């Protein structure tokens, strides 16, 4: 070992012993290590931060290139006077999501609980994985965000949570424990994911429209859904509410993309009555009143882009490696 390398090792140890070992000080530690690396370019130093779960304590390793090739890993925890088991202890609520009175809810229990409350199309599990899939896609995105990107993301985020003014937003931030700086950072992340989604939708839209053209026909339709079978000879009968109907029924008259209609109506010809058909425990009877073939206009392309993105995400989720640590 050359004398220079020996001196570098000693300097590396001194660096490691000086770094602050708390999660909220990691960025400062990274800067220190980067400066140290710039002073010792021959060893191509890299700091590895080991953030242990359930504790604010972090560990560091320093990877250095040996003059004869290979890597040297340095770790140099100092004696800070903390007993060993305390050093390796975890927060009492590690793995807990929320405590309400005497009930401490674990992350696992919370996710299970939410699953039972979720709608049929998307479980919280899927939603979390979807968000992680998109996070993966933007991991290496360092393209600067424009003011418009940030403003649009912030507006969309606030609208989605009913935060229509500054006071409501500040109250929400306080409730979830988010500082203004953290909120800005958070919105930056939202904007990146939003930008990725928009671009992906634009990229996939025209191909998807070409492959699923009939799904984007504009269709005006009427349908009944209720606990009893409703017979109708013509669409006109469906538009009249008979006096003998009992119980709760739902009548919908509207214009939709064909693909967004109840499944039995999607490919129906105008003027033909479909049903009664049993669907999710209710009986559906309906008719297409008018169908206009899909156009290549902006509105249709936007809808095709959203549908294409949903399919892309489903496929991407299927291929992803997912490990629920606490389930």
């Amino acid at each position, binding site marked *: 070992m050359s004398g220079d390398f020996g001196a570098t090792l000693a300097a590396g140890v001194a660096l490691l012993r000086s770094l602050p070992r708390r999660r909220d000080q990691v960025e400062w530690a990274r800067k220190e290590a980067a400066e140290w690396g710039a002073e010792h370019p021959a060893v191509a130093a890299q700091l590895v931060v080991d953030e242990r779960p359930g504790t604010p304590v972090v560990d560091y390793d320093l990877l250095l290139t040996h003059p004869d090739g290979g890597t040297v890993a340095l*770790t140099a*925890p100092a004696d800070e006077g903390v007993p060993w088991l305390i*050093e390796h202890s975890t927060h*009492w609520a590690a793995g807990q999501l929320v405590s309400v009175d005497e009930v401490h809810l674990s992350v696992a*229990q919370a996710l299970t609980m939410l699953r039972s409350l979720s709608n049929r199309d998307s479980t919280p599990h899927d939603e979390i994985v979807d968000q992680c899939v998109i996070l993966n896609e933007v991991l290496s995105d360092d393209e600067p965000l424009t003011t418009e990107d940030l403003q649009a993301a912030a507006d969309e985020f606030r609208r989605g949570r009913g935060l229509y003014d500054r006071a409501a937003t500040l109250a929400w931030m306080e409730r979830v424990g988010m500082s203004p700086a953290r909120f800005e950072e958070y919105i930056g992340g939202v904007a990146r994911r939003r930008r990725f989604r928009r671009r992906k939708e634009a990229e996939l839209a025209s191909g998807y429209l070409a492959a699923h053209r009939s799904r984007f026909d504009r269709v005006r339709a009427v349908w009944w859904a209720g606990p009893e079978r409703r017979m109708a000879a013509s669409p006109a009968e469906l538009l009249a509410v008979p006096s003998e109907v009992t119980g709760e029924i739902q009548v919908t008259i509207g214009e939709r993309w064909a693909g967004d209609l109840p499944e039995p109506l999607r490919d129906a010809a105008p003027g033909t009555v479909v049903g009664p058909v049993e669907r999710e425990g209710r009986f559906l009877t309906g008719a297409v009143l008018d169908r206009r073939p899909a156009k290549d206009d902006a509105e249709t392309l936007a809808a095709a882009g959203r549908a294409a993105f949903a399919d892309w995400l489903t496929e991407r989720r299927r291929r992803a490696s997912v490990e629920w640590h606490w389930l």
Partner: protein
Amino acid sequence: MILILSDLRDDTVEMVLPKLKRLGVPVTWWDSGDYPARSRITLALGADGARRLMLHTATGTLDLSTVTAVWRRRPTGPTPAAHVSEPTHRTHVDWQAQFLLDGAWDLIPARWLPSRREPERRAHNKIINLARAASLGFAVPETVFTNDPAELVPAYERAGGRLVAKQINSDSFTVDGADHRTYTTVLTRRHLTSRHLLQHEPVILQPYVPKAVELRVIVVGDRVFAAEIDAQASRTAREDWRHYDDDRVRYAAHELPEDVRRRCAELVASFELTYGAIDLIRTPRGEYVFLEINPNGAWAFVEMRTGLPISDAIAEWLARGARDE
């Protein structure tokens, strides 16, 4: 008269009270945390050997010489009156009051569950109870109690890299102001790099014992109840069921082999206890391995999740003293 010493918010006592009522035995539930601030105790020893042992509480007077059984569950410590405010005066009162209580309890000619303070304190010591269990023929893990950093790596290697660390005694502490816990921890190589910190506290090092199930065995007098706690389906509680992941942990009554059952009762009796909660592991090969005994360990969750009639056994044990008179 049965005297129950416990915090008045203790739900476990509530599980036994109706059983005692059915058995028709009078009960006094008192917390020594009331003493001396709100209760008075007088112990008078006459020249002729006569004794007067009186407890006056906010709700009545109890002649302690009439007590036939004491259940020392979870009493809180003596508490000085609020306006005894000078810290050294409060410490002084604590000290005097605890001595008085120990003396009073020694004079009561009653049966105790699990015991007076001293036998319990001795049995609670993991070093003593592990050694005692081994001497009674229990299988125990190879165990090192140490604060010598040089012991860590050899223990890790002997365990084939599957070494667990435990506290000698449970306690509370904080890190950056937040309460932290130390559970049974399966060590990684990262733990070895801080071996020097071992010098600051003794710890327990044991090879990881593979589990088919964990067992909590409750001994009441000569009756032995065993519950298996199958935490293998839970990533959270797999190494230590005290993480309580109840959705994924299975509890069930367990039939112990006769020799293990007998040894559990012997272990409790050897410490002059009448109650004990013993933690065992049954390995995939069917061996029963002793981990520790908690002389006043929890049993309520065992009864609630398995239906084992432990509260009945405790009530009957306590009432037996009164009926034998």
